[in-house]
């Protein structure tokens, strides 16, 4: 039986009139990452090593929403997360709330291989990364101008959205700036509700 590989850089309302430069940058990165994975498979690398290798390459490229180029929280910070799972053994590792770890997927793999746990988050995960000697950077390393602009636009409209969305999907405001204790419903203005009787306010 032959090997197979697939990778993604996120799904969402990706506009057909994506700027040419962005489209070319995305396709170049996908092609480069695919080549990397294929060449590792052709050299009989283990599936686990290949998957981590490809995701590290995707994390390093700020064109995608992971690692460097991660989108920002409402406070303008990054909180990255990752997960890796090995099918034959069903061993898995996951991390959340990372703000300094250059390759979250590598930390997820160390959680899988060097702890009795599956999932570490925030300070605990960050401390484990330092203990394991993983590469860390200042939070500013992960923050790009594009994502700062993206956050500013989202905050103008009180939106919480996928990184690809160009204001095309209106999502429920998770917090109501006027009255923090309340949720504020926002009508969806692009995609028709799946159930006209019960508009989808997510």
């Amino acid at each position, binding site marked *: 039986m032959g090997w197979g590989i697939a990778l993604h*850089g996120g799904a969402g309302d990706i506009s057909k009139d994506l700027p040419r430069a962005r489209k070319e940058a995305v396709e170049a990165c996908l092609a480069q990452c695919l080549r990397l994975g294929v060449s590792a498979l052709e050299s009989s690398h283990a599936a686990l090593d290949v998957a981590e290798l490809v995701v590290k390459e995707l994390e390093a490229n700020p064109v995608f929403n992971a690692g460097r180029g991660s989108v920002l929280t*409402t406070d303008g910070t990054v909180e990255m997360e990752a997960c890796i799972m090995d*099918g034959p053994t069903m061993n898995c590792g996951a991390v959340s709330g990372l703000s300094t770890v250059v390759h979250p997927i590598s930390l997820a793999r160390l959680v899988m291989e060097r702890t009795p746990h599956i999932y570490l988050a925030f300070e605990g995960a960050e401390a484990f990364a330092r203990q394991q000697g993983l590469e860390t950077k200042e939070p500013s390393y992960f923050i790009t101008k594009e994502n700062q602009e993206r956050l500013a636009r989202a905050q103008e409209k009180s939106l919480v959205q996928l990184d690809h969305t160009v204001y095309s999907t209106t999502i429920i405001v998770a917090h109501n700036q006027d009255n923090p204790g309340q949720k504020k419903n926002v009508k969806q203005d692009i995609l028709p509700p799946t159930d006209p009787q019960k508009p989808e306010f997510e």
Partner: protein
Amino acid sequence: TVGCVVVDSKGNCVAATSTGGLVNKMVGRIGDTPVVGAGNYANHLCAVSATGRGEAIIRATVAREVAAIMEYKKVPLDVAVEEVIGQRLPAGKGGLVAVSATGDVVMAFNTTGMYRASMKQGGTQEIGIWH
């Protein structure tokens, strides 16, 4: 979100996913990616990496759902993926890439696009954004 699924020539499947989450998310918000069985899952049958609106992917337990449908309904990967992306995950909420232990490679989404690439041994590469 970024993700990669691999099946090697011995049929070992692995899924790996990484993300920054949602723009303007609340501090401390956990999405689907680190929730095993929602945004990322692998077993002896397949490996799945999902992406999209995390809250919807968690509700639908997307990655595990693909593996469970394969196992319980004894259907191939593409049939299981079509059922999950086409019927169980609400429209416009996301997509996934998946491989099976028998070497199938599937990429599917119910949003306008998904940045994706794939290849099978001896096959040709596929790189795309829209349908």
